[in-house]
């Protein structure tokens, strides 16, 4: 029978497709990880921990920081010298040790903290750790990661293409079956009825005046609704997410690293402005953080297409920090951030009133900043939005002598336990417009 033939063909195509798909899905994952052999027979893990706890503030393994790079430091100095240097460097400098004085002078007389608590074994461990070779360059890691991601992408595309092909075949088959059936029916002498001439729907519609009226009203109302909606969003920049001169990730700083908002935006507590931190605030940490962790770097490249290290270099260029000499060059170039939250001039807003007095979380207005890779405007910042919050939010009176008397009397007057900002007068025009 013909039909059987057709079915067999379909089955064969399907099998073929399945095989292709399986073949791609089982492609071995090319994520290579190389294990370096331990340099010495000491506890490098303990050494790493000690290094991170005691040394990392000033030293890096492969790069100069406040102090010299420590990679393979054991080769540069003999072990005994290192023991005494680490335990008390100043004694050595004073005793006139040539090497000690050389290094002391090279770093402009910066005194290295003494670590008398470290045992020789600890120091051995640390030194052992310093022999950890530099991991395969970040670029290599990234490339592999990209390859994996790409291979995944390719296989997905193929599956999709195969599926599309299957559906095409199905459609073709349906037509063929239909045609065959019709041919059989005709062969069996089935006669089709002639279709009666119908009046087109649009003519019927036009003839029904009531329907026309209702539709017209509907369209008018609808267009009014949308026009109103459009006009109301003019000047409302909710979701505004401009490209900034430096790709600054709030997700990493406020989210991953849990830095308090007020650390950088310190004036939010005492001023009307939250303040964009000056670059010297950035340098409090970034003096020592010239590069991000490799996982972070990879994440940035894959998910946001940004190299965080280049962004840190932009900061250094702006603030005039020379990494090699670990000093400021004095050539600065202020960063021209794009302002996201723009209140009109006629609206007065004071951060300290909300942050310090009312204790409002930053996230209430600025949204989940700790999840934002790039900062965007979360709230509409419309007057209605302000007013709503003032209506709903109770004022914080605890331990505030200013409110004590007035809150007691006003709540008695309004017959409530807790006053909202609106009841305190937070809806009056002149409180924000002057």
């Amino acid at each position, binding site marked *: 029978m013909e039909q059987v033939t057709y079915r067999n063909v379909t089955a064969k195509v399907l099998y073929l497709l399945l095989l292709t798909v399986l073949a791609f899905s089982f492609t071995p994952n090319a994520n290579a990880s190389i294990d370096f052999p331990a340099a010495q027979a000491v506890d490098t893990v303990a050494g790493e921990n000690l290094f991170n706890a005691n040394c990392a503030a000033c030293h890096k393994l492969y790069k100069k920081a406040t102090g010299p790079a420590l990679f393979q430091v054991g080769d540069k100095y003999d072990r005994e010298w290192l023991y005494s240097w680490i335990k008390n460097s100043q004694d050595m400098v004073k005793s006139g040790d040539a090497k000690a004085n050389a290094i002391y002078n090279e770093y402009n007389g910066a005194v290295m903290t003494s670590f008398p608590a470290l045992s020789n074994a600890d120091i051995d461990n640390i030194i052992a750790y310093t022999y950890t070779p530099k991991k395969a360059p970040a670029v290599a890691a990234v490339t592999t990661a990209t390859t994996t991601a790409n291979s995944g992408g390719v296989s997905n595309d193929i599956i999709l293409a195969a599926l599309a092909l299957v559906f095409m075949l199905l459609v073709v088959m349906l037509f063929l079956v239909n045609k065959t059936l019709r041919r059989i029916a005709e062969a069996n002498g089935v006669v089709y009825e002639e279709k009666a001439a119908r009046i087109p729907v649009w003519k019927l519609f036009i003839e029904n005046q009531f329907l026309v009226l209702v539709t017209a009203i509907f369209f008018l109302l609808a267009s009014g609704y949308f026009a109103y909606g459009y006009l109301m969003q003019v*000047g409302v920049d909710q979701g505004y997410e401009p490209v900034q001169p430096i790709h600054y990730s709030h997700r990493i700083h406020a989210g991953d690293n849990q830095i308090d908002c007020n650390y950088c935006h310190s004036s939010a507590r*005492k001023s009307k*402005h939250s303040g964009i931190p000056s670059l010297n605030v950035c340098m409090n940490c970034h003096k020592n953080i010239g590069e991000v962790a490799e996982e972070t770097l990879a994440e940035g490249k894959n998910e946001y297409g940004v190299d965080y290290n280049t962004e840190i270099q932009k900061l250094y260029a702006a603030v005039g920090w020379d990494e090699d000499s670990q000093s400021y060059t004095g050539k*600065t170039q202020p960063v021209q*951030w794009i302002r996201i939250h*723009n209140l009109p001039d*006629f609206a007065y807003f004071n951060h300290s009133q909300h942050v310090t007095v009312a204790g409002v979380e930053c996230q209430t207005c600025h949204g989940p900043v700790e999840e934002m890779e790039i900062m965007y405007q979360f709230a509409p910042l419309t007057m209605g939005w302000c007013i709503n919050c003032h209506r709903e939010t109770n004022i914080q009176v605890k331990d505030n002598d*200013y409110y004590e008397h007035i809150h007691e009397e006003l709540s008695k007057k309004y017959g409530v336990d807790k006053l909202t900002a609106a009841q305190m007068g937070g809806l009056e025009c002149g409180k924000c417009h*002057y």
Partner: protein
Amino acid sequence: MASNKKYWKSIEELNPESSVVEALKQNEFAQPIPTDQFLGDKDVLERTSTTRRDFLKYVGFSTAAASLAACEGPVIKSIPYVVAPDEIVPGVANYYATTISDGFDFASVLVKTREGRPIKIERNDLGGEIGGVNARVHASVLSMYDKNRLMGPQVNGQEASWADLDAAVASGLEGLNGAEVILLTQSFASPSTAALIQSFTKKYPNVKHVTYDMVSSSEALDAFQETYGVRALADYDFSKAGTIVSIGADILGDWQGGGFEAAYAKSRVPKDGRMSRHIQFESNMSLSGANADKRVPASPAQQAAVLGYITGAKALADVPEAVRPAAEQAKKQLEKAGDRGVLVCGLPCPKAQKKVLDYNTSIGSVVMDVTRPIMKFSGSSTEVQKVIDGVKNGSIKGLITAGVNPLYAFPDADFSAAYTNLDFTLAFAMRADETAASAKLVAATPHYLEAWGDVEAKKGTFSLVQPTIRPLFNTRQFQECMLAWTGSTQSYHDYLKAFWQSNVLGGNSWSKALHDGVFTSDFSANYGALPETGTPARHFDTGEAMALCLYTKTGLGDGRQANNPWLQELPDPISRATWDNYLTVSAADAKRYGLTNTHVSNGALNGDCVRVTVGDAVLDRVPVLIQPGQAAGTVGLALGYGQKASIQAEMQTGVNAYSFYKDFSSVQAVSIEKVDGTHEFACIQLHNTMMGRDIIRETTLEIFNTKDKDYWNAVPTVSKDHKEIPVTSPEADLWDSFDRSIGHHFNLSIDLNACTGCGACVIACHAENNVPVVGKSEMRRSRDMHWLRIDRYYSSEESFSADADKKDNISGLGSSLSEFAEMEIAADNPQVAFQPVMCQHCNHAPCETVCPVAATSHGRQGQNHMAYNRCVGTRYCANNCPYKVRRFNWFLYAENEEFDYHMNNDLGRMVLNPDVVVRSRGVMEKCSMCIQMTQKTILDAKRDGRVIKDGEFKTACSAACETGAIQFGDINDEQSAVATLKEDDRMYHLLEAVGTKPNVFYQAKVRNTNEA
């Protein structure tokens, strides 16, 4: 029926020969329509292929494009500091104590800075002893942001570096081979500067230092120097005064350095039934005369006679008849006051000044203080005259000027020519003024807010000048130059600090002194050898000629801030004219010379012009203002106007009265002659009398002490059911009152006894609230934007109470027509009263009920709010306001070439207060009771979690008021000063009968009319 009526189109038609009528018949438009501007270029017009339809298409497209583009917000950049200074928190103001000593004004001030820019001057409470934070001092912050300032030093008219200038000065001074060079400076009153000048003259022995005050106090200084051996001026503490007799001394103006009003006001507020009595003999109507209990118009010659009589040098019979009774009475009054009496004199004659010193000493006046005199001025006109002569005759080869502008202040062609021919001319200047423009070398100096310094304004009271901003331009201050030119490498800051530590501080903290701004010390500074005295004794008998009395105005003073639009637009407290100086003439003299003042159709004032001649100096076309109270036979003219060099065209106002300042005498014999032409004044008060109404309530001390409050300060009544009930009773009220007993309820009290009308509050209000400057022609159209005005009323009879009586006795149509018309005209020597009027913040505000968009509404704290962004500009509110305090933005006054004042350039806009919005065109604005300041006070308290103390709430005007006339506070705080004042007997509300229940109230004026 055809009409044969003739319609008159203009008054010109009365004249059958008039060419105007003929011309108008031929031409529809009197002036040709300037079609050339757009049709002039025929070539372009013919070559163009744009049709009318194309044009309309472009118009349509560009309109659509513009409206679409308007939907897109601009990209706003935000640029933080690279390294933020520790003391600056964006959005939080810092205050620094410093001192102004520009050679005319001396005061200890606090400077409010935002993000490192000074934006406002405040009074320094610790520096009260120096006083004098007047309108000019408040406005001085804007002078720093003057776009006409010198940007750097110049050598022979070319921009140069400081090294070039240093070299040019060294070679210039050495090249003179010992010929005499004069260092002509303002009065610095600065111990460290004096020391620096001494070391400079030591290095260059041919340089002689001469101090020069453009407005001279030389006579008083000479008299004091001869009596006490110190070149200074006696200080007067008028708070101790029982009787003040002033003979031509404008003690509330700029007389002897000014700054006396705070103490004066203390004795003027009745306390325990007592207040001082102030008798003023004067020619021009001054602030002092306006505030006096008794003002006697007297020509300078009459004044001299009165002085002679009071001090015992003359018999009563020698006093001219016109002032004889007043003189006799004044003398009695002084004698009665004993040691609480004081005599002061403003006549420019050392003999007269000596008499005053001797008289006050002889009666043992506790008011006068000669042990700690005023050190503000030290110029000697004798020495300055020698310099002028020396320059003219060539004996002086070089002239260094600092802080003075002799080419403007000696407008004498000979002197100017001689100056340009000098071998060595060096000018220290902030602007390329007349002197700097002609000088070979110009040293650009910083504004005082960019400089270091010290001042001893009163003996023993030392104050510091510290910079509040990095110098805006490439400037170097005078003292820094002195250091550099004497070979020192020290900075002036280091020098000053060392100088203070070794001399002034006596072991006390430099930082504390810098923080406070003032420091009291026993240190006796060395100001060098005493200058030569010898100002000649003057008699003031001008015979048939008129006596010209030169004076300085509250606005411009001696003219050094002429490029400051705030000061140009500040109404003169007496004449209420802006942007001008003018010859003040008495009504009698005006009649004699045929001079008139007329009002044109929009109410604005026009005046005739005269030619004024003093000796060989002539000024053509000096406008005339008829001044009630001007003594007959005298005219007045203000100094400080008529500057041209480096002054913006709009601010080149008035005539230069220094032309008449011969021999540094403020009194001159003058002849005037009417010339053609009229002058357009921009006067913002055109109705001068109160018409017998009780806008300003006043009474006499006697009634105040003896009668019940209801007699002299009754609450107005209204009739209800044919019964008179007070307007304040709830029955008379249409509205339900809002309960304001919880929270803050702000009230402002204005004491009309303490208010002298000085105008400091007006400028403080401008600075705080970004009030725009509108320019002379808009002022003339009464479109001033001042949120706070100080109304000045003249009485039409001899006193305001006589006015009220006259009004009450009017009956019938004929009487009311004629007598009301009479009452519009001020008396020859009227009583004067001042009344600051700002938005009264009515609890039942008429403006609020008529606003169709609810743009103005009432706050619980008593303030009448104005939401500018909601206003659509119907101006209903202004029309419904009984106090006429609302101001409409007829134009865009910021960033608009048509109003090229400080808001139109980047430099000038730096003075704007970032907490207050700059209003746009088409919206109404008015006094907000400084809601930004009250909100800040509340927020600070909330943040600290504390209760607000009385005195913390302030408005710009209350903070600026030297006399304490304006008090602001929370009346729900029963302990507050303003709550006490509200219960005071003198309290009344302006136009109380209207029932607006204002939150601003006044303290009725009490006059001490007790004759001895």
